[in-house]
């Protein structure tokens, strides 16, 4: 797909996600997932050596987090960091995006964070989501 078209699509998708956020967290989640997937397409179309390519990579990871899909954000970040031509500045930025997401949760839930890490909570949420209540759907 043409990068011009992808840029148009991602702009529209970001606008939509931001509008939906005003209505509540849940409706916006799938909209941010759309943003992440379009950014991912852009990242595939644009080399990491170009500024637009680096912006798309950061955008894909950031939008995946806004979609609440930390696993996907982590997988994308890992893949982009592993790119041979990825500059250190991009690698650092991607790591910081993931760390900030953890820090934001830890600072919001300070009492729980004394005993449990956001990573552990995510892991349990994922199991919970897959297996259902009491693991009955597993």
């Amino acid at each position, binding site marked *: 797909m043409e990068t011009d078209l992808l840029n148009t699509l991602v702009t529209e998708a970001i606008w939509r996600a931001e509008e939906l956020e005003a209505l*509540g*967290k*849940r*409706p916006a989640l799938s909209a941010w997932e759309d943003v992440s997937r379009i950014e991912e397409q852009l990242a595939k179309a644009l080399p990491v050596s170009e500024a637009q390519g680096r912006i798309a990579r950061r955008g894909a990871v950031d939008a995946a*987090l806004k979609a*609440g*899909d*930390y*696993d996907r954000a982590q997988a994308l970040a890992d893949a982009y960091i592993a790119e041979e031509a990825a500059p250190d500045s991009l690698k650092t930025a991607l790591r910081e995006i993931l760390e900030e997401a953890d820090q934001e*949760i830890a600072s*919001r*839930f*300070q*009492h*729980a*964070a*004394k*005993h*449990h890490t*956001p*990573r*552990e*909570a*995510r*892991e*349990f*949420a*994922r*199991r*919970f*989501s897959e297996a*259902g*209540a*009491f*693991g*009955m759907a597993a």
Partner: protein
Amino acid sequence: METVAFYSYKGGVGRSQLLAHAAEFLVGLGKGVVALDLDFEAPGLHYKLPEFRPPGSPPFTGGAVPYLLATADGAESAPPLGDHTISVPVFANANGWLRLMPAGPAPHRAYWAALKALGDKLRPADPSGRGFMAMLDLQARIQDELKPDYLLIDARTGVTEIGSLATTILADTVVCMFVGNFEAFDGTLAVIEALKNAPRLTSQKPIRVVPILSREQKFDKYIADRARSVLREKGLTLFVLPHDQFATAEKAISEPLLIKYHELFQRLFERSPENL
């Protein structure tokens, strides 16, 4: 702080009533107790543990649902627990204390609207982990700020996300209640299996499960024997509470049931090696 969740696969087993009496028992032992109503869809613990409000004082609008909603709404800091818990009067000469965090100001329209909004914003299975952290944070904050000896949770009936979270993640001990029919027992047994196999967070001990046949009547003997046998195979001891027509009608409880309650509470809360 020890967290005990009171769970039943089916309703109408006297779960909230047992929790309320357990709270009073602990207060009598000089313990600090927080009772938390996580039965969001049909909350009623505030009827069993009524607060004292001076005449003319405004109605209480706090509770777990408004608290979690405020947290989910992205407040800079979580609202004070004092706005969402109430002191429950205890009997004279009791050395302990009791606070209740009701689900919210149910049954009123604003409560159901808040519950709907909470469902849109915060779910335990939210893959970001926020829903999980919010529930763990509420429990940890109760421990840090109110410092009770016991947190007693009224868990949602049936197979639900919130009931599962309250029992498999928050609880150290789960009291599983059922009445004398196979519909209730088979469901309870499935949940007990799940509880025993539930993954635990780092630093958590395995869940202790206490199965209770509640409101037992003479014709329940067959299922009581069957339940006792099946549970024994799983290393569990069945505790039986007799039917009490006064308790069922939410009147004063008769002596035989009170005696059984106390036997149960001694087993639940006074940890001798055979009770572990």
